[in-house]
Structures are given as C-alpha cells and as structure tokens.
C-alpha cells in the first residue's frame, strides 16, 4: 500500500495540535507510535527532515497522510478523538451544489465543502497534493471510483452545478495548458486526458463542474480549470470537491479532506448537495456527512477473540482512545467509528482496534494446546524417496523457475507443431522470457547444462518439481504434476546410462516398467522410449537430438529422463 513522504516538524506540529507547542519526537518514539497506524518508517533524512512512511492498511485511507497519522497518535494521547462540529448537520451552508439528471449513468456522486482560515504553506500544499493523489490513485482506483479537486474559493459563485455536456460544447483552459480547449480536445491532447480518458469513454455527454456564472471548475475526473483550480501558496479560502461512482467512498474521501484541513486550522463549512434522484442520503444532504451508525457488540465476542478477559472498562478506554465513540451497556458495547473511517465490516475489526490501541505487547502469548498429528502428503513422501535415490546415484539436485518461455520449453526442444508443445500460457505477459509454465523439466536442466560447460564433467543433475500440463478435463484447464527430470551430459553420455538409472530407481520403488519406442522430436529416432507402467505412459527417456543440443549450444552428448511421480502412487 502507499508510501508517503512527510516533514518531521509538520508531523510534530500536527501531533501537538493547533493550540499546543510542538515538541521533538525521537525516531524510536515515532516507530512505536507508527504501530497505531500500521505504519513502517522506510526512510529518514535528518538533513531535510523528510520521513518516508509506508502504510499497510488498504481499508484506512484516512491514515495515508501526515494529518491522519498525527490524528491517530493525538487521539491516543488525548484518550479520545477531537470533535469536528462540521460532521453534524449545520444550519448554514457555504452554498449549494446541484447535480443534473443523467449523471447516474456516468459518474453519479459528488461531495464538497469549503475551508477558510488555513493559509496554505509550501509544505502544506505538497501534503494536500500528495493526499489527493494517493486517495484518487489507490483508494479511488486511478480516479475510477473517486477523484478529488481543490480550488480557490474566492472566484466561485454558488450554486455550483454538476452537469453533463457534449464534448464540443464547453471549452476552458485546463491546468498545464496555455490555451482554451474543448473537452474532446482535452481527451485527445492533454496528458491527463490521455491517461484517464478511458474512465468517461463511451459516454456522449461528459461531466462538468461549473459555478453560477458559468465558469468551469473542472472536467471530472480528468482535469481542473487553470484559473480556479490551481491552489497556490498563500491561499486561505479553499473549495474541495470529490466526485465518483460510490456514494460512501465519495463522502468518506471528502470527510478525510475536511478533517485534514480542520486539523491544519481551517474552518470547514458544508455544501448542500441536491440530487435529482433519491440516494441512501436522500435527495438533499450536506457534506461532510457522518453516515456511520452505532453497532452493538457483545463484550464476550471481543474477549473471546483476544483470549483475554479485558472487562468493559478497558475495552471502552481502548476504543475511545483509538477514536471510536463508545457507549458501554452491561454485557455489550455500542461503538461507532469516527466519520473519516468506514472500515467496520465485522466485530473482528473492532477486536483488532482494541488490540492495537492497547498494544500487542499487552497480550501474553499462549501456546495452542490441542493435539494434532503432523505428516507429509503421500506425493511428497514419494517425491522425497525419489530424490534420495537420485542423490545416491550421484545426481546433483537443481531447483529451477517454473515460469519460462515457449522458446525454451518447445522451440529449442524441436516440439513446435507436435502434441508435446501444449503449455499453459500467460495472457498479460510482462516479458517474453516469462510467458508460460513448463510442461516438462528437461528444458530447465538443459538451461543449466548450457551455462555449465566449464564445470568439470560428467554432469549428472536432476530436479523433482512441478509442471503444468494443459488438460481440458481438469477444472482449472490444466493439471499440476510433480515430475522427476534428470539429465546426464558428458563426452560419452549414452542411452544405457540413463536407462540403468531408471531401472535401478524403479527397482527400489518396486514398480515394474517396460519401455516402448516413441518418436519424440527432442530425442534421436530409435533412441527414445516411453516408460510404461501398467499400460500407462508415465514418462520418457532417450538421447537428446543433436539439433536440440545445438539449439541450447551444448557441446557434449546428453541423455534425459522424465518421470511423473504422481503416477508412481497409482499402483500403491
């Protein structure tokens, strides 16, 4: 999940709060506190004061910023969350935002508020932009479900309208451009239009945010207007807007921004949203909005999950000091998340917050005491027997990657066009070297031989590993088989050498096999055999074809053996 960059003194100031003087926080102390936010300190530059912190929890976007981290730490120190009056319904709103019909098909939801009284500093602006990017990119899935706009408030005349327009009907000067462009031009030419245009493609009318005077605020989720939508250092009247496809995600994102700006000293005023259709919030509502609901949880459920009889007092203290609103009632606790969180799906989410708030060190480890019998699967036991016998026959074990190329698994083995060339292929190939799964092990061993002409001879090597064989009858379209592959290479390598190994191996495993000649393109004709066990083919062996050796640039003769270990179990 995201790694963010922040300034140590900014974090210290936010932890102290607007009315207190910040004090120096040691790195050790910081690392302790980061446990509260599942954060890991990835880097620390003492000269610039930059801290790099990775946040793990993908369900806690409120923590992906300096303000959120500081808020969680401050809450713990205060013993309770700060109150944010703007989450309650306000008598006065900063203005209205009217949603036009038809947007439910394109990008239905919007939330907005104003923030006045925080004068934007350079480092504050960097933080605002970072939060905007991380939230839209990761939480909002590259702006698909959520995107965010920040504006200078002064030029905006309410009511603002969230509307749909034809791509050529509206033009404005987007951020990063010197000229006025239509929406169609922006999608075709502007880097952000090219990057994010796919989100609105397929619609003949596109979303637009305009004010009462008809000035364009932005073309969500693509780009802001350059005139209004470029917040600069020194601005202290801001307008924030979030659009998206999920009502709660949109509301949550605005709540996070509102709390962040409030933590930096701004006064937040809500905006009234007017929707043409009924939503879970109704047709008119104010944002920011506290849409959470209290949830009643049996104390016993928390105690059983943690294995510790904490009692209602400790549970209440733990949850309050982690930001919850808590009411204790007998054997139950009624809990509600703060409005900048929406990650309570199950009681277990509360359980973890209790543990995190109290610190994991609070819980003494207890060894699980119930008796169980350990053991290996029959396949693994057979594989281990085979491996030990191969080692006894002086083979060196190899471990190879299972992913590789068609070139190695088929072409260099002369298999193209034959029934042996069926492999599981990957659709979203990253590199041609890793585009399919091996269907046999011999190519993996020849790869070793290719790289090892300077290692003294003879070369005897084997691998017991998994391969994937396409099979229409299997429910995942292929079978995963555990296979023994072995190769002997030296100036006098000969069929009978590998034949003797097979013979001895299967003698010790007590399986009586026969060999049938097989025309296999990888082997010299008349020098390859199919290994038959009870009328079933369970493997191959033979002298590798000189053309195969040439393809692999191997300068000595080589013989190979391939044996399905799964099939050795059938008989037992």
């Amino acid at each position, binding site marked *: 999940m995201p790694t963010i960059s922040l300034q140590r003194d900014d974090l210290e100031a936010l932890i102290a709060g607007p009315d207190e003087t910040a004090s120096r926080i040691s790195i050790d102390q910081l690392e302790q506190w980061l446990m*509260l936010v*599942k954060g890991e300190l990835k880097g620390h530059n003492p000269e610039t004061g930059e801290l790099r912190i990775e946040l793990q*929890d*993908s369900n806690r976007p409120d923590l992906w910023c300096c303000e959120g981290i500081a808020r969680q730490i401050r809450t713990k120190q205060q013993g309770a969350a700060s109150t944010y009056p703007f989450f309650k319904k306000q008598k006065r709103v900063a203005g209205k935002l009217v949603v036009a019909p038809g947007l439910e098909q394109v990008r239905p939801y919007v939330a907005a508020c104003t923030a006045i009284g925080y004068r934007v500093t350079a480092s504050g602006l960097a933080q605002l932009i970072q939060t905007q990017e991380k939230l839209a990119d990761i939480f909002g*899935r590259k702006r698909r479900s959520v995107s965010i706009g920040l504006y200078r408030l002064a030029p905006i005349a309410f009511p603002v309208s969230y509307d749909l327009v034809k791509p050529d009907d509206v033009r404005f000067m987007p951020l990063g451009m010197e000229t006025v462009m239509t929406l169609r031009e922006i999608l075709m030419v502007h880097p952000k239009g090219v990057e994010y245009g796919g989100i609105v493609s397929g619609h003949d009318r596109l979303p637009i945010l305009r004010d009462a005077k008809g000035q364009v605020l932005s073309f969500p989720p693509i780009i802001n207007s350059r005139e209004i939508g470029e917040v600069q250092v020194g601005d202290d009247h801001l307008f924030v807007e979030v659009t998206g496809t999920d009502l709660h995600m949109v509301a949550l994102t605005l709540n996070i921004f509102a709390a962040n700006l409030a933590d930096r000293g701004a006064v937040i005023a809500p905006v009234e949203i007017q929707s043409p259709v009924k939503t879970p919030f109704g047709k008119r509502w104010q944002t920011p909005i506290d849409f959470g609901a209290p949830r009643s949880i049996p104390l016993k459920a928390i105690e*059983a*999950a*943690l*294995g510790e009889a904490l009692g209602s007092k400790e549970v209440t203290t733990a949850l309050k000091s982690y930001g919850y609103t808590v009411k204790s009632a007998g054997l139950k606790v009624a809990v509600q998340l703060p409005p900048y969180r929406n990650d309570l*799906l*199950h*009681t*277990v989410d509360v359980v*973890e917050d209790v543990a*995190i708030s109290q610190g*994991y060190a609070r*819980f003494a*480890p*207890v*060894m*699980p005491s*119930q*008796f*169980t*019998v*350990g053991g290996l*699967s029959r*396949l*693994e036991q057979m594989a281990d027997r085979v491996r030990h016998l191969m*080692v*006894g026959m*002086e083979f*060196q*074990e*190899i*471990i*190879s*990657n299972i*992913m590789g190329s068609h070139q190695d698994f088929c072409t260099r083995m002369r298999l193209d066009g034959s029934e042996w060339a069926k492999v599981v*292929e*990957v*659709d*979203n190939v990253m*590199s041609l070297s890793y585009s399919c*799964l091996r269907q046999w092990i011999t190519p*993996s061993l020849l790869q*070793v*031989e*290719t*790289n*090892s002409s300077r290692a003294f001879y003879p070369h*005897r090597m084997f691998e017991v590993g*998994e391969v*994937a064989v396409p099979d229409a009858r299997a*429910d*995942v*379209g*292929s*079978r*995963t088989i555990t296979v023994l592959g072995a190769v002997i290479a030296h100036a006098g390598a000969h069929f009978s050498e590998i034949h003797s190994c097979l013979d001895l191996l299967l003698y010790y495993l007590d399986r009586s096999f026969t060999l049938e000649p097989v025309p296999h393109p990888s082997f010299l004709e008349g020098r390859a055999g199919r290994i038959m066990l009870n009328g079933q083919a369970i493997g191959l062996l033979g002298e590798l074809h000189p053309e195969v050796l040439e393809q692999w640039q191997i300068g000595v003769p080589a013989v190979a053996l391939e044996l399905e270990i799964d099939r050795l179990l059938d008989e037992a």
Partner: protein
Amino acid sequence: MDNLHPLESKVLLALAPQPGSPSTLDHLADSTGLEPSQLSMAVEWLLAKSLIAVHAETVAYIASLTPIGEVFFEKYAPIERVLSAAREAGQTGKRLTIQDIQAKEALEPSDVSKAVGTLKKEGAILIVQGGCIESTGRNSPTAEAMRALLQELRSGQRELQTFAEPLRAVLQQHAVKRGNAREPFRVDERVTRSFLLTPSGQEVADQLSRDGVAEEVSQLTPELLKEGAWRTKQFRKYTISLRAPRIAAGKRHPYREFLDLVKLKLVSMGFQEMRGTLVETEFWNMDALFMPQFHPARDIHDVYFVKNPTHARDIAEPYLTNVTQVHENGARAGSTGWGYQFDAERARRLVLRSQGTAVSARRLATSPSVPGKYFSIARCFRYDQVDATHATDFFQVEGIVLGSDINFRTLLGLLNLFAREVAQAKEVKFLPAYFPFTEPSVEMHVRHPKLGWMELGGAGLFRPEVTTPLGVSVPVIAWGLGLDRMAMVALGIHDIRDLFSADLEFIRTMRGSF
C-alpha cells in the same frame, strides 16, 4: 631415503656398481631401461637431493640438414646447377649470362652469385666478355663436397668432428649462422653430462642394494593380497599434504535442503502437508479470501492471467453462493459485506496462483480436521519485474491452524513457537499488520543473529467472512513465513535469483550453514 621414488631408486642402483666411473644419460638409459622423460625427471630429483652430482659436461657439435638442405638434396645445390648449366652451354655453344642462369634455374640471385664466386675461384668457370660464363671443364671441389655432405646428412645427423677436413670446412662454411638462415646445414652444440654418486648417494645406493628396492610398490593390488606378497613389499609414502583432486557428489540442492528442514520442523510441530495447483481460479486465489473484486492487489498488474482457457467451467457449490453473498452483504457471517455486486464470471477467471493462502482456502472447504494444523510450501507467481529481490516464481511457506482454543493470544503463542523452532530466535516482536483476509493481523519480527531485527512472517485470525462461507465454524489462524531472506543468509547469497541458479559450478560449490 624414505621419500625415494621408484625411478630415483633405479638410477641410484644403476650408478652404484661402478663407483667413481661416471655415466652419461645414454648409459643410464641403457642400464635402467627408463624412458628419456622418466630418466631426466629422476636425475633432476636426485640432483636436487644431492644424491648424485654432475661429473663432467662435454660439448659436442652435431651437423644436420636444414629444410633448405633438403631442397638442395632434391634439386641439387646451386653451385652444381650453375656448373652444369655452364657445361651444357659450352657443349651447345650458347652464351650464358648470370641472369640467364638465374632465370632458367629459378634460383635466388644471392645463391647464384655466391656459387659463381666459388666456381670462379676454384677455376671451374671463367667470366668472359659481356658477363658470360664459360666452363673450363675443371671440377669444383666445393660442388663435390656439397654433394657428398647432402648425401651423407640426408641419412641422419652426424658429429662434426667425424667429417674429414675439406668436407668439414665446406660444411661449416655453409652452416646456418646468425643473419644467414638460407643455408643447407646446421651445427648444434650438444652438452653431454655425466653423473657420479655423491658420498651420501653412495650410502643410499648401498642401503638400497642391501635392502632391495624391488619391494617398494605404490599400489596394493588384489594379486599382492592373494599371494601374500605384500609382506615383503614396502609401500611408498605419499605427500599427503597435497590438495585432494576435486570430485562431484550427488547431493540435494542447498535451498531444497533448507526447505526440507523447514518441512521437518513443521511436521514435527504437528502440521499436515497440503498441496494445490499452479493454476487457480480467482475464486480460490482471492474471492474465497474475502478480497473484494475491486481490491487494488487484484489488478492486472499484480497477477498473471491464463490465456487459454481463460475461465474454469464452474465453481463448486455451495461455496460460490456463500462467497457471493458474503461479499455482497455479509450474509450469515455477521458482516456488512463489501456492498457491491459480485461478478461470478470474474470468479472463474484463471490465474497463476499468487499466494499460498489459496491452498489453505481450498483445504478449509474440504472438511479439515478440527483441531487441525496444515502447511504448504507452494510455488507462487507475482507480476513483478525480475530483479535481485523478485523472482518470477518463488516458494511461500503458509498454513492454517483450526481449533476451538484459537484466539489472538494462541496466535501469538504459535508465532513464538515458529520463531524458536524455525528461526532459532530468542527475541520476538509483534506488530500490527494488514492482510485482506485476517483480523486481527500480526507481523512477527525476530532478532536474527546476523541480520538483526527482520520480519519472519505474517499471520492473523481468518475473518469470519472467509471461514463461514467455507463451512468452518471454529477460529482459524492463517500464517505465512517469509523464509527466503533467511535461506539467502544461510546460503551466503545476496540475489534471490541465485536460489534458482542455472550454474552447475555455483550449485556444486554452494553450501548452507543451518
């Protein structure tokens, strides 16, 4: 004396019978019957040990034919050809210039002028007006000597001193000298050394002839054993401080040895092995683990999708229905669910298994034992650029523990056990962590003797949204151990790709300390 090689003994014994009379290498070759290379080795060793000394060095000069001489033998020497050309011209009455001879006989100008000079001096030819050559009819001693020398040396080299004076002078005159390589003969200096026993050599030789040397053998043979002859033999002592010749052993791969050890530890702690398939459905790889279908880690850039077939035929019921409902509204699991419309088509999409937890999910759905402990060492695939810390596929060591006594504290207890048994760590730290399918979640850090604090693994209690739809009603621990870093330290490597090296020499020499 102890360290005498059989060859040395032979030479010492050959010198011993005539004390005071030196032997040359040729003599020694005759008397010992050794090959020249063996003999010279033995002589050098004995000289180095001061058991013999050089008595005298005599220098002999050996004449032989050069490649030019071979040619002269085939086509006659220039001097003869010039003379016979002059005689022939005399009989036919032609006038012959030096240039004519040169052209006719295809001779080097320097050879012709040298031959003409000699012939003229010997009175065999005259230079007349116009630079023409005329035969006088007289013989040329040089030409005759040349013929005799070419004839003689053709059959083998000969010592210079054995040639009579006139021939010897011609030979020396026409021998290769510095700055003139175009000559038919060469004369080489040959140093012949003769050797004598030193007093200590004499002692050793005497002892050898007393005790007999034939007794020393280098190799005990079946014959010696059979006949009991070894009793009268001496076995040559070896220089055992020499480095042993290299051999290759049949052996397990060191990384597999490490994994075998982990396997053994887990089995001994009561874990049963589970296995799965390399290709999985998104359903078992992710949906069953309550990862919402819109989860960022399910992106095309994180997982490999299979090309053909793209989808599994179906997902077993009741799991499909149960999981669908738990995603949509949390049904029966006491959850709100994710509140989105579950896509059953997406669930059938085939991927390369990206986490070992998929194996655990399938195990949960097939009547696991309660209480029960399971593990798998599963090959997994991630859509990552291959580099020093990312392999295209890698092993994940994962598992589950089911039981009515499972809770957060027993989870920590189990991790303590892992830390002690698998990592031999005495100090353990537990940190809050996030995994989509567990709550609470823990990251375990241990103090490694070499690496200091390092993450050993992650674990947690499976969310009820995972266990309930799969028909499991007791709490379940899900755990995973990140052992690659530990393995790399144990094997002394720094690049994860080296765990899967294709270099036989590297694999043969790699060894683990664990």
